[in-house]
């Protein structure tokens, strides 16, 4: 348990260090800040102002302490980054919230559809396999068009675009695991003994634990890239769009703050996964 906690802290630090290292490969932000008046003296003055010439270690420590104290300021708008990040996170959460709703609804429908009859199952499988390979930005552009044409709420359409792939992934995983669980010896034995459906269902949840983990890992990657793309297409000023624009503008404080948030988030999710598995699947309790 303790080693796991240490490991998590180490992961966060390492992750932040990786992101920070990338700054030294990017072009010089001072020229962008100077805009069309980038003579040598101005660029030097800007570099000094933004602490870009300090030694690496000192700069890293300053960045981390500024982030922790909420004093980190955007190069672009001169506003505290943390405040901006929270505002934008709220906007993104609205989209993510709709995404979650659609994941559950669509996912549930797909699972139910595959459980009802063989014929329906084949159709649902075919449909979901087809929809899964359509890239998110195609469905996002189509949904944007629909939203502007028929006045549908943007957040909902963006959430739907984001939800298509994860819901299919989730449902196909659940169905697969449930089918395996059905064939597992302990299930067969339980059925032979005539145990009730609910009891069996409880047992089968153990089989779902791995799906959950696989889904969350795929979800993180998809959501990070997908949220930015969807927000960009819909013009939603959320954290994904902000991050993308900041990366293009070389707004390093923003990139750093988002990297920190991401590190913490991924580690938190990893911990959450472990807890879920611990709860749901007793067999894996020793795997720590």
């Amino acid at each position: 348990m303790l080693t796991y906690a240490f490991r998590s802290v180490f992961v966060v630090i390492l992750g932040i260090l990786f992101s920070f290292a990338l700054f030294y490969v990017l072009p010089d932000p001072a020229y962008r800040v100077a805009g069309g008046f980038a003579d040598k003296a101005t660029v030097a003055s800007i570099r000094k102002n933004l602490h870009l010439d300090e030694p690496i270690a000192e700069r890293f420590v300053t960045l981390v302490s500024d982030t922790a104290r909420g004093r980190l300021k955007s190069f672009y708008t001169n506003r505290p980054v943390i405040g901006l990040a929270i505002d934008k996170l709220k906007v993104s959460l609205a989209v993510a919230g709709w995404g979650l709703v659609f994941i559950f609804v669509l996912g549930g429908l797909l699972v139910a559809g595959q459980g009802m009859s063989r014929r329906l199952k084949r159709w649902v499988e075919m449909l979901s396999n087809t929809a899964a390979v359509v890239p998110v930005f195609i469905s996002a552009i189509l949904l944007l068009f629909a939203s502007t044409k028929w006045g549908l709420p943007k957040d909902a359409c963006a959430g739907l675009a984001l939800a298509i792939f994860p819901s299919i992934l989730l449902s196909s995983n659940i169905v697969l695991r449930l089918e395996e669980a059905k064939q597992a010896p302990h299930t067969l034995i339980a059925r032979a003994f005539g145990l009730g459906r609910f009891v069996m269902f409880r047992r089968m949840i153990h089989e779902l634990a791995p799906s959950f983990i696989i889904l969350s890992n795929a979800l993180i990657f998809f959501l990070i890239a997908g949220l930015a793309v969807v927000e960009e297409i819909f013009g939603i000023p959320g954290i994904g769009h902000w991050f993308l624009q900041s990366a293009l503008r070389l707004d390093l404080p923003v990139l750093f703050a988002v990297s920190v948030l991401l590190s913490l988030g991924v580690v938190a999710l990893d911990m959450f996964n472990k807890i879920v598995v611990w709860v749901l699947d007793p067999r894996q309790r020793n795997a720590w």
Partner: protein
Amino acid sequence: MKGVTKWILLAILVLAVVVAFVFYKKQTKTVEPKAKPRIAQAIKTSKEWVLRDSAMSNMTSFDPVKIVDAFSVNVLANVYEGLVNVSPEGRPVPGLAKSWEHSPDGKAWTFHLKKGVKFHPVTGCNFKVPEEVTAKDVLYSFKRALSAPGAVTSWIFTDIMEGALEFAKGESKEIKGIEIVDPYTIKIHLKKPYFLVTRLTFNGTWIYPAGIVEACGEDYLSSHEVGTGPYMLEEFVPDDRIVLTGFKAYRQIHEKAPARVVIRIFSDPLAAMESFAAGDLDIVEAGISTLPKARGLAEEGNNLVSVPANYLDYIVMNNKKAPFDDIRVRRALNMVIDREALAHQVLKGFGTSAYGFIPPFSPAFRGFDRIKEQGFKFNPAEARSLIETYLKDKSKQTLELELVIDSGEVPETIGQFVKAQVENNLPNVHVSLKKITWPAMLQMAFGGEGVFYRFWWNIVIPGEDLYFLFYFPGQDPPHGFNLSCYDSKEFLTEYETAMAGLDANRRYQGVQQLEDIMIRDAVAIPLLHKTFYFLEKKGITCPVNGLLKKPYIYSTSSEN
């Protein structure tokens, strides 16, 4: 399994309803600012109304000496004033100075300040704002333009004002060239005869109270404003909105002007256009992807106004690096580009063809037909013979060029068009395209590494000298940012003469002569001048100009 499935389905549906209920938000109409306005100073006209504007960018700073983008200048032009303001037609008019005169040799300029001009109230700092604007505030602001850490504005004065360069470098404690005659009179001594007035419209010369930075901190002006303009900057929420509130103590409140201006920030032009169509905006800018929709909306009684901007989209050639050090190559490349096709067939709705270097909003502009006659001509045959002669002299068979562009629809389209035109018309020339990000482009251009790339400029203040800012010899001011590494004694001499012209017409003629020299020397490849398009709701009249786009202080009125 069926029974279980039904229960799963039911559970999910219930959960979905609950989550949807929690997360659903009704679409709100116009956003009302939540911050407390400075009510005591707020304007009260008989007919108060709120102008709802839109924007695609954020403000980078509120500090006059640190802003570099046209948008921030555009907004703050309603909040700050300099000695000289800009009229809706883009001409210099009295601002904080009610009048000015100059010595016969044009080297000494005296400005007489208006009396009783009030500053906006200061918030978030314990600073007592002076009763009125006086000469010491002007001196303070000018000093800061030259020496504040992170300032990008020192070049305004360093080449023309006596003692400015020394002060900017920290070699002297005072600026020799500024003389305070009395609290309302300031005299400026120049190194050479120059029409100083246009320089004083620049944002770096905007005036704020003396001692503000010492009292409130260096960063204070980055996020607060203490201007004298007709509007106060009430609120800026990045990626959301900017709110301007009328300043009651402003000396000349226009009776039809809006009491408040709410600028909503959009991330994409289509969303802004949709908002206008839904009735949530009074003004929206139309761009290359939204112009057809704007035209449609204009037919419903709205007003689509357009104005040619002080903007040039062009290709930079480093005149000192082969093969662009040879005038034959530079001229040939200019002659193979069909600028009409680019403006009217390819980039429909972007702007007009550019055959010269003076932007169309300038009074010095000769007119579209005249410049087409006098500027670069489309002549592929002559271009081919020039290239053949060049290759023969260099004993080469082919010419390999690399054109650098940044990412975006316009630069990429321009790059691909230019490549196709050059290769189609000049068989022995091959162009490869390299795409980099905008910050990398700025670093390459201003770091002196650029050879052949697409660039653009947008000059937001009147000032004929600024059209040539990017062509002067030397990388550092006092002569500008010479991206083309252009080095011509004739050009410099003519420039000095033209800019010394204290008569406007003499100056415009001088500027046209400078353009002729640049065309003859084929310094760069001008391509397009952007056109600003604005859709105004029926009954709203907001003057637009090719510089600052929308100065609200002037006659923005509503008939509703």
